[in-house]
């Protein structure tokens, strides 16, 4: 079984660097990082991720627009997306039950173990 491919889209370099390291070392994931939201769709087309963690508030484009562009893309349509956002408090997240625009979300700061659990639940199963 191949490693899960996870795309992290967040303009905060320090967050993606640490999270990529954690998911690689402790979750056995194949992680790609994209710090420019506007390049997220192109990165996803190249990488073909099993799950995308997507920041909402980015300087060049908002995560909601990226999510709809991904769903409009014939190659990427159906790719699972989880928003990882600083715009909500943890009380407002409710596992997979609560969603923003139909997508599950995690409130920053999220324990990386929870990120791993979300990968187990939401990522497309590897071949």
């Amino acid at each position: 079984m191949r490693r899960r491919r996870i795309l992290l889209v967040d303009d905060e370099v320090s967050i993606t660097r640490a999270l990529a390291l954690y998911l690689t070392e402790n979750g056995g994931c194949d992680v790609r990082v994209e710090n420019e939201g506007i390049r997220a769709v192109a990165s996803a087309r190249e990488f073909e991720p099993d799950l995308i963690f997507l920041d909402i508030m980015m300087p060049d484009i908002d995560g909601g627009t990226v999510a709809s562009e991904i769903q409009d893309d014939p190659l990427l349509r159906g790719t699972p997306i989880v928003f990882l956002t600083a715009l909500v408090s943890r009380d407002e997240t409710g596992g997979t039950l609560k969603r923003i625009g139909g997508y599950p979300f995690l409130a920053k700061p999220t324990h990386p173990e929870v990120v791993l659990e979300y990968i187990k639940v939401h990522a497309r199963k590897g071949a």
Partner: protein
Amino acid sequence: MVSALLGVGLVALTIVHLLPVYFGLSIGGPFLILFVVAPYIAIALGAGWFGEVRRYQAELRAMQLQLIQSEKLDSVGRMAAGVAHEVKNPLQMILTGVEVLSKRLADTDESTRQILRDMADAVERADRIIGGLLNYSRDRGLGLAYADLNGTIEKSLALVNHELDKAGIALVKNLHESLPMVRLDEFKMQQVFVNLFTNAMHAVGRDGQIRVATSMERLTRGPNVGHRKTDRYTPGERVAIIRIEDSGPGIPREHLEKVFDPFFTTKPTGSGTGLGLSVSRQIVEMHGGTIEAGNRDAGGARVTIMMKLGTAGAPA
């Protein structure tokens, strides 16, 4: 001011009482009556006028305080979203970094592991404060339904019962048995009661006592009772009253006006956000009710909540 006016009044009264004796006896009966009665009428009118002035001054002050409070709440709301984003991103980095290091340093000495645990705890603490701010700025809506106020209090007590038992705090309940149903957002009102019980627990410490009582009253007079737009209750309106009292040291006089201010806390740094009572007030006022904090004559603090009782259509 009042004593000076009384003094002047008494002197005037004495003089005008002597005047008719000195000058007026020869003038005749009607003038004598006028001389004697007029000062009383003047003083009564004056006292009434000063009473009105004092009442309007008190109302003006209450309105000013309400305005300041509302401006504070709005500023907090505006600030919250901005602060949340700017602080939560660095917290995410620190938490992830700490977890990466914890895994890599799994075999390190206990003191290093403790430092890493402390760092993760500090992130949690900061996140709780930020989360409180975000919730505070968004809690503007209510899901109203008729509910049993006593039942809501019981449910709130169930959430703190364990802590009460652990601290050996005695709970005395005196709940009015036939309180009508009240239109309220039960979840939010539970938040209020849990906040108040938690504050009371912190105030009384070990082996203290907390009393909670509900009653029903028909308001005839009071600072919030009247027919003006600013009055929350009309004379004769029935309200449910909830009193939560504790056997703690009470609220220092200089804190009484500040306890409902956002970020006001007397708890040690990191133990309280200073938003509990402010949020409670916001929730109670959204229900059209009032909340006041004060001290009991016998010692200890007392928080009094008044809630409007349901009218037409309220289930029995």
